[in-house]
């Protein structure tokens, strides 16, 4: 099965910058995977995810070499608006993603942009609302919503494009822990029930590590570690980079439990089962 996202030898330097933000990066993501991309500030993860829906190179100027193929399509040769029907993108600040009068109109915004017929728009709006579970917010204005609700609306608004892949750039940054967890479990549900490929850029690994099946750690514009979360995150190297690994992992490392005997846990539940 071909990879749904293929990054080949990608190097990108922002216009006016002295050094590339990402260099010689290679990555393959299969359909249905749930990937977490993390790394210290400035490592290039924000740049990398913007290469996946064409914002780089079409919106952000700079020099790009290498290739990004998404669902068989070369992002360099394809417009962002065309790519948006394959790759949905959620940004950090929900305030800057809600532009319409109310939630219903917000969800209609993207399909309206595509010029779809009214019945189709209506169907997509209803489906997205149901998928995310926000029917009761239908007529609310953006300022009437909490941060968590706003971000869920932003996700629904992107789902109306019927993408196969969702890329999220630190979507829980501004949210309190309970709202953040709600978003993370929503993503897990969409991934599990609808086969949506999830690519999540995150610092808050304690929340997301247990849902993902692969963690990609970047540093200085390169991918330095890639693998199953338990293994990738428990390496000392990753901790030294400044990545905030889940405290459970830290605890197990402190206990100096033999890694070859037990797979390291990502949640307190797993940890208890190992210890007792």
């Amino acid at each position, binding site marked *: 099965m071909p990879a749904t996202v293929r990054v080949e030898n990608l190097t990108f330097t922002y216009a006016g910058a002295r050094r590339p933000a990402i260099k010689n990066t290679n990555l393959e993501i299969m359909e249905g995977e749930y990937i977490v991309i993390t*790394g*210290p*500030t*400035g490592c290039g993860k924000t740049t990398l995810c913007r290469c996946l829906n064409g914002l780089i190179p079409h919106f952000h100027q700079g020099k790009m070499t290498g290739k990004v193929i998404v669902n068989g399509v070369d992002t360099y040769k394809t417009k962002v608006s065309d790519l948006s029907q394959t790759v949905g993108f959620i940004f*950090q600040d929900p305030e800057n993603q809600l532009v319409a009068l109310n939630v219903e109109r917000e969800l209609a915004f993207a399909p309206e942009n595509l010029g779809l017929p009214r019945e189709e728009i209506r169907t997509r709006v209803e489906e997205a609302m149901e998928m995310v579970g926000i029917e009761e917010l239908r007529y609310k204005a953006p300022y009437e919503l*909490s*941060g968590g609700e706003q971000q869920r609306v932003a996700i629904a608004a992107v789902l109306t494009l019927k993408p196969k892949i969702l890329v999220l750039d*630190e979507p829980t*940054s*501004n*949210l*309190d*822990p*309970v*709202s953040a*967890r709600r978003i993370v479990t929503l993503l897990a549900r969409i991934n599990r029930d609808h086969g949506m490929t999830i690519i999540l850029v995150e*610092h808050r690994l*304690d929340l997301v590590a247990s849902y993902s099946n692969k963690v990609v750690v970047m540093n200085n514009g390169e991918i330095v570690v890639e693998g199953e979360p338990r293994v990738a995150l428990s390496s000392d190297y990753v*901790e030294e*980079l*400044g*990545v*905030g*690994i*889940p*405290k*459970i992992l*830290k*605890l197990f490392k*402190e*206990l100096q439990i033999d890694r070859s005997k037990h797979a390291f846990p990502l949640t*307190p*539940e797993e*940890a*208890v089962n190992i*210890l*007792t």
Partner: protein
Amino acid sequence: MITAEEIWFTYPDGPTALRGVSLRIRDRELVAIMGENGAGKTTLVKHFNGLLRPQEGSVTVDGLNTLQVSVAELARKVGYVFQNADHQLFSETVYSEVAFALNNFGYPEKETRRRVQQVLRLLDLEKYRNSSPFSLSGGERKRVALASTLCFDPEIIVLDEPTIGQDGSQKKKLGELIHSFNLEGKTVIVVTHDVEFAAEYAQRIVAMARGRIIADGPSKKVLTNPKILEECALLAPQATQLAQRISERVKGFPTELVSVEEVASAIREFLGG
């Protein structure tokens, strides 16, 4: 010392943000104020430097009643570091940005230069002294904003959500920094919803929900109490969650633990190898 007595505050466009909040913060404490967005945390701390004044009740800072003093006067005692550094930056150079507060407070030229130099060195910003603050990275701009508050050496420092968007090592550096302020004798108040950060660096937690203080006590007591956590929309630190789960299977295992080290030693003690 900061004393808040039964303060009520309602914003002009509606929401009643504080409903009878009483609090006393003594000198040299390191307090974390926690709760979900909209609980009233930021509203509360804005009363400490006079940005907001209570409609009922009173706030006293170092003996001064905030209803009788200007923000500028209180600002000398209470340094407030805002969440978004970009809301402060406007100067041509990092030097003048940091010197802004000192100029406003009327410090003489020589003193200003000394203080700016000192704080730039402390925060590793010396090489940017003559650069434009806008040319710096996000993390560097945050440090400039912090520097511009530290330079006038306030006795009380308030930080509003300082950990948002920060990676692990940045959080660690920040935690160590506020810990060192506290050791120097400063009172530090951190508004945050980052439980792990609060567990690691704060001695006292004030948990709020819907305009009221739900709990006020040592982190061991507040962050380990499921009822309080639920009411304030907080999650327990992972180490605490583990301790509580272990205690369900192992009789007598302590549950009022918040740090990785504490739980690790408890595990070694109770579970042997």
